[in-house]
């Protein structure tokens, strides 16, 4: 099995306040820690599991800055074989169709059986890149996949629908699968793997290196314009319980008991 896995370096904003930069179209991510996108972490694990079961070779593809090399090395430490990082400011990152085109350029022309992506990036959350990528590559796809069974020339994918219902589909290979979280238990990188990863190839390429006309994936080519980012007004009618942690606990306990809620 020859595989590609697309991974994105994203900021962890779950516990932090997000601020919009004065340009109005980017956020100030200087204080955030970055890591592999959650779903992509599962995609990496799935590719390595398939490789272990069927033999094969996995290439990591990522569009991102130099600092994301730590993420890419980590994926290689877990078992991916080599990596391509596209670094180019001219890609219209706000448009998943442009991102898909750039990712496709790094894959096109090479043989492959499977391309795995995450089903959603936790920052932009388009849930669109993987399926657009499949069309760019001219291959089959299935999105939101919670189980993969590789058969002879085919793949059986369990798609997770609303309410936890699964839709099982069969696709002829090659195919793109967008992986949903929870499909497996991502491993920790073994020490030996971390050492080996340093020796694996990590190619850094620009659009020119890929033979892509920058105008075809830039903001002029994109048919959507990111006009403005803003912090939505938080309308909370909640009663905020104040005090030290223990005081808050005591107050909440009385509210619950007096209100007949427990």
């Amino acid at each position: 099995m020859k595989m590609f896995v697309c991974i994105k370096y994203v900021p962890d904003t779950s516990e932090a306040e997000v601020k919009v930069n004065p340009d109005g179209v980017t956020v100030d991510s200087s204080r955030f820690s970055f890591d592999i996108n959650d779903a992509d972490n599962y995609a990496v694990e799935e590719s390595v599991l398939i490789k272990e079961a069927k033999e094969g070779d996995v290439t990591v593809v990522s569009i991102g800055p130099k600092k994301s090399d730590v993420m890419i090395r980590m994926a290689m430490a877990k078992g991916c074989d080599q990596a391509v990082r596209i670094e180019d400011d001219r890609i219209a990152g706000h448009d998943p169709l442009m991102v898909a085109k750039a990712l496709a350029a790094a894959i096109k022309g090479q043989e492959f059986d499977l391309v795995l992506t995450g089903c959603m990036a936790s920052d932009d959350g388009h849930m669109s890149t993987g399926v657009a990528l499949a069309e760019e590559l001219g291959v089959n796809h299935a999105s939101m996949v919670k189980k993969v069974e590789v058969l002879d020339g085919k793949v059986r994918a369990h798609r997770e629908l609303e309410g936890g219902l699964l839709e099982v589909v069969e696709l002829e290979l090659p195919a793109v699968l967008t992986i949903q979280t929870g499909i497996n238990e991502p491993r920790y990188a073994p020490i030996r793997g971390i050492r080996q990863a340093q020796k694996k190839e990590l190619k850094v390429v620009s659009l020119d290196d890929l033979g892509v006309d920058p105008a075809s994936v830039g903001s002029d080519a994109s048919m959507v314009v990111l006009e403005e980012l803003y912090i939505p007004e938080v309308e909370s009618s909640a009663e905020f319980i104040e005090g030290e942690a223990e005081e808050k606990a005591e107050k909440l306990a009385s509210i619950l008991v007096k209100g007949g809620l427990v």
Partner: protein
Amino acid sequence: MGNILVLAEHRQGALRDISYEMMALAPKLAEDMGCEVTVLLVGSKMDDLAKKMAAYGSKVLVVDDPLFENFNAEKYQKVLSALIDDLKPAVVMTGQTAQGVDFIPALAVEKNLPLVAEAISLEYANGTLKATRQLYSGKVNATVAFKPADTYLVTIREGVVEPPDAAADGAVEKVDSPLKDDLTYRSFVEYIEAEVGDVDITQSDTLVAVGRGLKEDKNLSIIEELAQAIRADIAGSRAATDAGWIPHDRQVGTSGKSVKPKLYIAMGISGAFQHVAGMKGAKTVVAINKDPEAPIFTVADYAIVDDMFKVVPKLIEKLKELKG
């Protein structure tokens, strides 16, 4: 100008809520754009569903063919592709659902059309269609404008509007399937129903729900103690079930269960809309989160901004004391 083509979504014989919800957005947009709404249904044995959609006053086009007995992204893409050529719609609107996300981006690439995914609102003014969508799990909103194009593709987040009341009956019109033969490269195999577990959290009166903030498995014991003290069942966010801390059938949200307990205590849960969609039916919501900006607070009745592990032990102690 062409019409707004709304793709009504259905599964296992029933229309999905998003189909009705889009009928709250599309007519207003059509008015602003100076066009009309056409609903599209693709499936097999669609008569009843077509009637239901027609009750919202717009014309309903039906592609009714055994080829579409089950959803198939490739087939849907082919149908939409052909109908876009025929009807030249100004907008194609679908849900940002497991169906929508499975073929709309490919359609956008195939037809070279602009796409905005998961809009929460739409606005048309001075000849420009703009959509609002969310980034960073709802912490940031984005206004995205479409550049002029023949057809705009937009998917709508589930649950952002109430379905409208039925209006007058619209006409139902059958159209021949643009697809004549079955496909060989992608096929539907079967549906597998969600697992059922030992406790049915949709029936619980009191739920204590945990998220990624639980941090590790061993921290569950204090949550269990709290649950026991107030006779609650334990539920969780997707992050908590993915991590294996709690069973999958206890996941609350769009891809899990919709719950409606009298009391829902959310701890270490950020409140992503996929989670909130499953618990907003709770009567009273208590949220404990150390991030004051966490979206979960927008649906809370009582809020505590703090470390859950500093709050819960005292909470248990005091509850036990008060309840005797």
